[in-house]
């Protein structure tokens, strides 16, 4: 029986010639006990073989590559990897929301700042940092509700340079390049008034006198 049992295992190992195989199978079929032994062992092996391989996790290769020890890199290759190497961005919802909030706040503040600068010096902004001077104009009109200044520096627009009031005194700071500029105050949107303290005056050809200011570095 022991020898016959050995033969079963030789069959399961595929360790027999074709002739031996037939003889062994005939012997097994003639012996009910041996046949049961063979059937049970074959079924156990078949069950095992049917299970086969186990599929590794999807990110297996990436995980191994992430864990590989680093090698000594030359400076140029480190710079190249820093500039062109791909990166995995790990994020969570809280971080993403914080970044979005920061972006919105920064953009809003920048837009407000730009709008304010445009209102203050829409025609001189390009000259900032290249010989632009700040000129302060003042005008006393305690009863006025709104005072603006218009001149050739803002193409005589009456709504772009509003003056601010403090104790009845209206003031505005203008960013202007060196040169001579004519201007007038507009009180409450209707009355054009010449600056009584201008450096000089120039007739406008329509019966009024424009104030003149000279800006120099």
């Amino acid at each position, binding site marked *: 029986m022991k020898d016959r049992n050995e033969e079963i295992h030789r069959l399961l190992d595929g360790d027999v010639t074709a002739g031996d195989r037939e003889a062994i199978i005939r012997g097994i079929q003639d012996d009910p006990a041996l046949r049961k032994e063979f059937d049970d062992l074959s079924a156990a092996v078949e069950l095992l073989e049917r*299970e*086969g391989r186990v599929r590794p996790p999807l990110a297996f290769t990436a995980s*191994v590559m992430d*864990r*590989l020890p680093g090698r000594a890199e030359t400076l140029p290759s480190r710079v190249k990897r820093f500039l062109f190497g791909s990166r995995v961005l790990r994020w969570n919802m809280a971080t993403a929301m914080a970044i979005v909030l920061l972006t919105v706040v920064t953009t809003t503040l920048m837009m407000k700042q730009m709008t304010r600068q445009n209102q203050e010096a829409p025609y001189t902004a390009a000259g900032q940092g290249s010989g632009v001077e700040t000129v302060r104009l003042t005008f006393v009109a305690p009863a006025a509700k709104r005072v603006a200044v218009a001149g050739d520096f803002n193409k005589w627009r009456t709504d772009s340079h509003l003056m601010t009031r403090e104790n009845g005194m209206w003031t505005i700071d203008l960013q202007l390049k060196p040169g001579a500029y004519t201007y007038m105050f507009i009180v409450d949107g209707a009355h054009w008034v010449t600056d009584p303290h201008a450096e000089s005056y120039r007739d406008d050809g329509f019966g009024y006198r424009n104030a003149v200011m000279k800006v120099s570095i």
Partner: protein
Amino acid sequence: MNTTPQDDEHQIIERCRKGDRDAFAVLVDRYQSLAYTVACRMVGDAETANDIAQESFLSAYTGLGHFRFGSKFSSWLTSIVLNKCRDLLRSRRDTVGVDEIAEIRQTGRRDPEQEAAAGESGEAVQRALNGLPPDYREVVILKHIEELDYQSISEILGVGIPALKVRAHRGREMLRKLLERSGVRP
């Protein structure tokens, strides 16, 4: 001139030795299933198997200088995986009590109907494998799951073919009994 997969693999290994990490990724991709399966079947749980398989590739990467170009990379890698599995099983044996080992070996007998349902999922097969002594288990896995011949198994384990056949023989007998005991009709 025709190149064999073996030639191709040797070229990849040469590139790895020169520090080409992309070449190593090719090897990992090619043999991840082998390493993971052997580890999984040896230790019996997916998370530990994943750690062992990954560690094995890292060991292979750092030890590529010792790889001999007469043998197959897959055989060398499998021997690394099995060494790590043996270390783990040894440490488990040192930390797990005798009663618990007996419990693992018995693999918790269940109602035959329940067991039959689980058997199809492979749970019963894995529990039966867990019940084999490690040196039988590794031969059974390499022979019947990885479908390697005894010559290759001998190269991996460093054990002679006659001894391997004895282990396979006894391993199959034990496997059959464990499956029967847990109510699964092989």
